[in-house]
């Protein structure tokens, strides 16, 4: 029996290398050639070459460098081939930055340019997420299509359209200037968090979660934290995702969602919690709070409670008050009301929840149902559970809601 190679079978190792290196390689080529399609095609060809050659030649000592060099040669070959028709492009290429496509310094990393371009506010939000998954996480078009539950053709068209807008509208390939960095970073973080949430509780489909998407979001956020050190909201989002991800092993029981108060906390991932808590402590020390840092702090309070009964709800309520002061959205108001129910009781909370205009948002129906149930307004609770079930497409969550509804006294 052959000895087990550390890091699993070679195919998996290749896959991991491609995933890790993809963004850096494609980003460097986009900068060099000024064209997304040329870069993507060339990197694709370099990966095919690697799959053919590495099993015999072994993985090169610097796989990212190897992929970049190979892809660059492929791109130059292609441009030469097309040069008779596209004379202008060749000229443009020879005028391009001749320096090797290696990262110059931390902040000059090409991936950072790519992140900001893919998450540009002039692109539709779903296009930002799709471009990010394709170019920064290195998912194939088919995988991105699966993540969105749309046919591959549809996703290919969406990506093509987004890239066409980048090219024709002149969306720049660079890190924004400092005066709008903060605002543009918020758009980037929103995309990362969207990817994470889709992986954490899939909006539809037969699988209740997609761990791969959550893992990609965390990986991307780690890259961002490395590239933009000292941006507290990047750290905050990373901590928020780590603390949330830590609860994954306890979230499902026989295909049914288990709510936070009923989870077996011994099954939470302690390493992720420790890392998340450490980041939250650093954020608190820094004293520049923002939306993600506060959400991370709220999750830290949950992580700190050995038992749901021992949750420091007063602390959580204070944090939601702080969040309301910087991001007063109906969704934050809803979550604050849920915390308020634990401090001041369900009547006060229900009065607030009933005033929120969130009837298309299924957590609103879930929160209402739970509060009505606690107050003993059973018939209304049943209606609220029904309404929640009607607007929930996640299988595990539906199963949970049906169980709760059916357990109501008749």
């Amino acid at each position, binding site marked *: 029996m052959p000895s087990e190679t550390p890091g699993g079978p070679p195919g998996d190792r290749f896959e991991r290398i491609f995933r890790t290196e993809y963004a850096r390689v494609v980003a460097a080529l986009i900068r060099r050639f000024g064209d997304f399609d040329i870069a993507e095609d060339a990197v694709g060809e370099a990966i095919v070459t690697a799959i053919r050659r590495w099993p015999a030649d072994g993985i090169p000592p610097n796989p990212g460098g190897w992929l970049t060099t190979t892809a660059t040669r492929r791109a130059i070959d292609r441009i030469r081939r097309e040069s008779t028709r596209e004379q202008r492009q060749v000229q443009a290429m020879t005028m391009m930055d001749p320096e090797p496509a290696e990262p110059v310094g931390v902040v000059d990393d090409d991936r950072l340019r790519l992140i900001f371009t893919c998450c*540009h506010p*002039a692109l539709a939000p779903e296009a930002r997420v799709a471009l990010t998954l394709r170019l920064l996480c290195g998912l194939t078009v088919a995988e991105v299509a699966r993540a969105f539950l749309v046919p591959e053709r549809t996703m290919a068209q969406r990506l093509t359209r987004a890239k066409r807008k980048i090219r*024709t*509208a*002149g*969306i*720049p390939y660079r890190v*924004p200037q400092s005066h709008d960095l903060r605002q543009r970073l918020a758009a980037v973080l929103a995309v990362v968090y969207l990817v994470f949430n889709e992986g954490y509780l899939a909006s539809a489909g037969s699988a209740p979660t997609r761990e791969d998407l959550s893992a990609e979001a965390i990986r991307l956020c780690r890259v961002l934290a490395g590239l933009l050190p000292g941006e507290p909201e990047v750290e905050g989002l990373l901590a928020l995702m780590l603390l949330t991800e830590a609860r994954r092993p306890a979230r499902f029981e026989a295909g049914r969602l288990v709510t936070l108060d009923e989870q077996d906390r011994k099954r939470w991932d302690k390493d992720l919690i420790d890392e998340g808590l450490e980041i939250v402590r650093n954020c608190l020390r820094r004293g520049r709070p923002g939306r993600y840092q506060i959400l991370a702090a709220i999750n830290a309070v949950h992580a700190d409670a050995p038992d749901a009964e021992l949750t420091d709800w007063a602390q959580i309520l204070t944090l939601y008050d702080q969040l309301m002061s910087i991001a007063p959205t109906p969704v934050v108001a809803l979550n604050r009301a849920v915390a308020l129910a634990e401090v001041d009781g369900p009547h006060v909370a229900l009065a607030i929840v009933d005033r929120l205009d969130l009837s298309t948002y299924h957590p609103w129906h879930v929160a209402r149902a739970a509060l009505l149930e606690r107050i003993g307004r059973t018939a209304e609770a049943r209606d609220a559970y029904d309404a929640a079930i009607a607007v929930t497409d996640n299988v595990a969550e539906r199963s949970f809601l049906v169980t709760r509804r059916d357990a109501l006294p008749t």
Partner: protein
Amino acid sequence: MQEYMLSVHHRVEDTLPEGAGADEIIAAVDTFNGQLRSANAWVFAGGLHPVDVATVVDATGGDVITTDGPFAETKEYLGGFWVISAPDLDAALDWAARASRACRAPVEVRPFADEG
């Protein structure tokens, strides 16, 4: 450098501000135009009369058909526009934000297709 059209979209139900309001807008647009010129971003600009004085000419058939009124009855109409020159979309969006503040209306940014 690329050329962009910044078009000002008015809604039919919007009423034009009276008196001092209108003067303020005119002054703000003048200032904005000055900024465009001194940054060498100015190409062309113009404000349009309301759509109720528009005429549509259609020569796509055999005859030339002339009709009164806007091309399509819509809730929004083009109130005016700038053509500017900018290095990239970020720069154009920056000008558009200033334009929108000056004329107090939403501004659409569209790149011109390359000539040739």
